């Protein structure tokens, strides 16, 4: 598996991944999947009436994209903690770049490693939309 080829040492960064340009259809898809039916994310008329230039992406939508990036990197089954902080709104046509860095690795008694990473999701402007962190419990490599 790919995750076993990654050097699990502090300072290692993941290859960044872009998501976008984001579309209203993506926001709607997330609304349906999550159950968050706040019209600010799919109804331009209501979003403008509330003082926004248009609809905007759910913070949890961007969190889910960041989660895709992080679990592709260190393994979906390995995640033990995932945390995000919402910093800036995200709009249709935005292109997001997810990046990650290993901060800490601690060896467990059974040979597995608890890997703590910093995560970030930036807009094309360079501004951070979401920052976060996560812990992954990566199993010991199989003896070959």
């Amino acid at each position, binding site marked *: 598996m790919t995750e076993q080829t990654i050097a699990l040492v502090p300072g290692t960064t993941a290859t960044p991944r872009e998501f976008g340009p984001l579309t209203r259809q993506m926001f709607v898809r997330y609304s349906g999947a*999550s159950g968050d039916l706040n019209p600010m994310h799919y109804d331009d008329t209501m979003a403008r009436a509330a003082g926004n230039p248009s609809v905007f992406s759910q913070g949890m939508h961007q969190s889910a994209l960041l989660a895709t990036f992080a679990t592709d990197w260190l393994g979906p089954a390995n995640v033990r903690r995932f945390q995000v902080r919402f910093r800036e709104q995200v709009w249709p046509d935005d292109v997001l770049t997810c990046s990650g860095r290993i901060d800490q690795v601690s060896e467990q008694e059974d040979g597995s490693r608890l890997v703590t990473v910093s995560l970030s999701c930036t807009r094309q402007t360079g501004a951070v939309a979401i920052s976060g962190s996560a812990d992954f419990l990566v199993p010991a490599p199989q003896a070959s």
Partner: protein
Amino acid sequence: MTTATPEASPVGAVGTPFEVHVERGKIREFAAAMQSDSAAYQGPDAIVPPTFLTTATTWAPPGSRVVVGFDRRRLLHGEQEYLYHGPLPRAGDTLVAQERVADRYTKPGKRGGEMSFAVVVTEFRTPAGDLVAEARATFIQTAPKGDPS
């Protein structure tokens, strides 16, 4: 003009527990929305993606949730965290969810006034009572406009 804000649940208040059925189709739909083609989120043995448990509250029965009590026009979702205490929940699992007000505090607003914070933790347990996962949401009520500092 008065603003009808529901009475806030105090720290320590808990909601009524409610059942969450982890559905295979819902995981697949969520994975599509998060643009993941990972095999881990497909098929009968699908596991939940890290932020999936957010969907649980969509179907929380009326009255089962705690009351944050903030003015919706000044309400922000500031932070969200998920903790998994072991292997991830998977398709077919039934969990019992319960909300709790874990903390409330205030900070001075950047432009005067006072910002209020509320931390709501949702615990997800097996029917036998074992803690599987926790979701921690931090809600912020921004300082009112023109509020003197």
